[in-house]
C-alpha cells in the first residue's frame, strides 16, 4: 500500500500541445481518487504518467516514498484496468490472470491460490478456460479487475473502465468496484469523463480542464462549493442553470434581476454581493434546487415550459425565463404540465451560487 504524490507535473507533446499543466495532487494511502473532466482535459495522460506509460516532461511522481519518474511501468508495482479491457486475446482467462505473477516467477501453487481468491470475489470460476473473445463486455472487465487484484499491487489505476459497458452494466460494475475497494483497500486512481462515476466512486474527486486541476475535494465539497463556474456546470446532472443577472441594492434589500426574473437574496448573500451593486454577474442554480410553486418569499419567478421530460419518478422541465433557459428537476411526476404552460418556480434559499463573469470564480458569502 502506498500514497501517491504528484508535484508540478507537466506533459508537453512537442512544442505545441501542453497536455498537463502543473498538476499537484496528494493521494493518501488506500484512498480512492477519481479524476474527471471533459475529453482532452489531460486526465488520462496524468494517469498514464503515473503508470509510466507516458514520459513526464517535468515534475515529480512519487509512489510510496519512491520517486518513480523514470521507472518503467513494470517496476512501479501498479495494476491498471483499461477502457477496452486489454485482455491478452490469445490466452485463456486463467493465463490472463496468471500472467503478471508468472512474470514475477511466483510458484504456480501460489498463483493458483491468488487466482482462486480473485475468481471467488468476482465470480470468474466458470470462465477460467475461456478466451477473452468468448466473454461479454462485463465479464471481460471483471477479468481485467481480477488481473489487477491477483497481483496485489500498491496502486490500482483505472482508465475509463466502464465506458464501453451499457448503462445498466455500468451501474452494476460501479458497485462492484466500490465493494472491491472496501474488501481490498488499495490506493486507487480512477479516470472517467462521467461525473456520476466520479462522484459515486471517489473518496475525493479531482476535476480537470485543459490540463489544469480545477478543484480537488470530496464529492459533497465539489457539489456544494464548486471552485469555479466550470466545476459548477460539470458536476451535477442535469447541469446547473446559469443566468446573467444584474445586482441591485435598494433600501437595504439586495436583489438580482434579469429579464423576467427578480429574486431577493438573503442577508448572507447580500453582504457578499455588496461590492457588485449595479454590476452584472452570473447566477447559478441547480435544477434540483428549483421547486414548483411558491417557496421562500422573494425567490419565485415565472417560467414558460418548453419541454416536459417525464421520468416516472419525477419530471424534468425545460423552461424559458426571459432570454435564459432554465431546467427544473424534482417536479412531482404526477404534475399536469404541458408544453407552453406558465409555471411558477422557486429557488431554495441558500442554494444560489454567484460567479464573477470575468474570472468565473464564485462570489461566496
Amino acid at each position, binding site marked *: 500500500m502506498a500514497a501517491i504524490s504528484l508535484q508540478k507535473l507537466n506533459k508537453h507533446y512537442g512544442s505545441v500541445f501542453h497536455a498537463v499543466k502543473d498538476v499537484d495532487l496528494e493521494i493518501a494511502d488506500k484512498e480512492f481518487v477519481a479524476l474527471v473532466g471533459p475529453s482532452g482535459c489531460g486526465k488520462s495522460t496524468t494517469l498514464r504518467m503515473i*503508470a509510466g506509460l507516458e514520459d513526464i516532461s517535468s515534475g515529480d511522481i512519487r509512489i510510496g516514498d519512491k520517486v518513480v519518474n523514470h521507472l*518503467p511501468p*513494470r517496476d512501479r508495482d501498479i495494476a491498471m484496468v*483499461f477502457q477496452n479491457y*486489454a*485482455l491478452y486475446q490469445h490466452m485463456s482467462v486463467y493465463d490472463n490472470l496468471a500472467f503478471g505473477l508468472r*512474470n514475477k516467477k511466483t510458484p504456480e501453487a501460489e498463483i493458483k491460490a491468488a487466482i482462486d481468491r480473485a475468481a471467488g470475489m468476482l465470480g470468474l470460476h466458470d470462465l477460467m478456460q475461456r478466451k477473452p473473445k468468448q466473454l461479454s463486455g462485463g465479464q471481460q472487465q471483471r477479468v481485467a479487475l481480477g488481473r489487477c487484484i491477483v*497481483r496485489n499491487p500498491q496502486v490500482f489505476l483505472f482508465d475509463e473502465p466502464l465506458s464501453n459497458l451499457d448503462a445498466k452494466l455500468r451501474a452494476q460494475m460501479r458497485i462492484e468496484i466500490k465493494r472491491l475497494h472496501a474488501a481490498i483497500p488499495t490506493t486507487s486512481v480512477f479516470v472517467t469523463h462521467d461525473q456520476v462515476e466520479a462522484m459515486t466512486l471517489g473518496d475525493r474527486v479531482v476535476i480537470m480542464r485543459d490540463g489544469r486541476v480545477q478543484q480537488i475535494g470530496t464529492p459533497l465539497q465539489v457539489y456544494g462549493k464548486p471552485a469555479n463556474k466550470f466545476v459548477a456546470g460539470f458536476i451535477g446532472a442535469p447541469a446547473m442553470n446559469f443566468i446573467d443577472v444584474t445586482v441591485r441594492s435598494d433600501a437595504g434589500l439586495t436583489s438580482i434581476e434579469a429579464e423576467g426574473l427578480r429574486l431577493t437574496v438573503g442577508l448572507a448573500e447580500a453582504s457578499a454581493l455588496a461590492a457588485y451593486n449595479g454590476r452584472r454577474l452570473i447566477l447559478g442554480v441547480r435544477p434540483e434546487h428549483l421547486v414548483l410553486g411558491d417557496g421562500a418569499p422573494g425567490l419565485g419567478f415565472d417560467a414558460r415550459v418548453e419541454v416536459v421530460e417525464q421520468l416516472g419518478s419525477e419530471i424534468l422541465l425545460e423552461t424559458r425565463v426571459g432570454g435564459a433557459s432554465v431546467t427544473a428537476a424534482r417536479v412531482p411526476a404526477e404534475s399536469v404540465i404541458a408544453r407552453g404552460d406558465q409555471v411558477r418556480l422557486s429557488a431554495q434559499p441558500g442554494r444560489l451560487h454567484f460567479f464573477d463573469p470575468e474570472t468565473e470564480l464564485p462570489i461566496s458569502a
Partner: protein
Amino acid sequence: MAMVKRSEFLPWLPAVGRKTLFALVLAFICFAFAFPVLWLILTSLRPESGVYYVHRGTDFTLASFAEVLSDERIVSAFLNSALISTLATVFSLLVTVSSGYMLSRFTGPASRIWFGTIYVFRCVPYISWVLPLYFVTQSWGIYDTYIGLLLPHIAVHICFFSWLMKGFFDGIDPSMEYAAMIDGCTRWGAFIRVAVPSALPAISALAVLCWLFTWNEFLFALILTGNRVPVITVVMAQFVTEMGLRWNLMAATAVMALVPAFLVALFGQKYVIRGLRI
C-alpha cells in the same frame, strides 16, 4: 466494413433474376481465371506431337511428367526454389514483423525515416533494381549463390510487406501491450509475448504471401542466377531453345510448380482471409 446486401443491389430485378445474374457473373469470373490453368494441365498431358491440338486430341500421356522428373536439373530447381522461398520467408518475417510493429507503434524520427526509406524503395520500379543488384552480387562474389538470391528477395519482402504488417498492427489495440508492460514485461517482451501472438493470423497470411512471391518470382531469378543455382521459374523458361519450344515439358513443369503454390494457398487460405481481416 460496410457490406452491400444482395437485395440492395439492382433492386428493380426480381430475386430469381438477381440470383441468376450473380451466378452467371461468378461463373464467368471463375472460368476466366481457371481457363488458362485448365489449358495448361491439358497441354501437359498431351504427347509432344499433340500440343498444338490440345482441343482436338484424344490421346493423353504422363510421359512429359516422367521426362521432366528424370531431369536432375529440374528436380534440383524445385528443391532450390522451395528452399529459397522458405528461407526468404523466415528471414523476411523476422524483419517485417518488427519493422511493421515499429511503424505502427512508434512515431519518432527513426520510424519516420524508416517509413520514408521503404516508401522510396517501393516506388522504384521493380525492374530497375535488377541491374544494380546484378553488379552488386557480382562484386560481392555472391552471384549465382543462395545468398545472392536470398538477400534481394528479403529486401523486397521487407519493402512490400512492412506496410501490410503495419496495417495489421494498427488494427490491434495497443493497450494489451501496455497491460503487459505493467504486468512485468519490457517493451520488447510485450511485443514478443503479446503483440506477436495476437498478430499470428496476420503473420501467417504474410508468410503465405511471402512464400508465394518468391516461389513465383522470375526476374531476379533470371538475372541473379546462372547454372549453379537453378530455380524453377528460370528452368521453365529454358524450354525455349534454338531447337524449338518444348511446350509439353514446359507445361508439365508448370503444373508441378503449381502444386506447392496450390497447397500453400489451399491450407494457408484460412489464415490469409483471417489475417487480412484483422
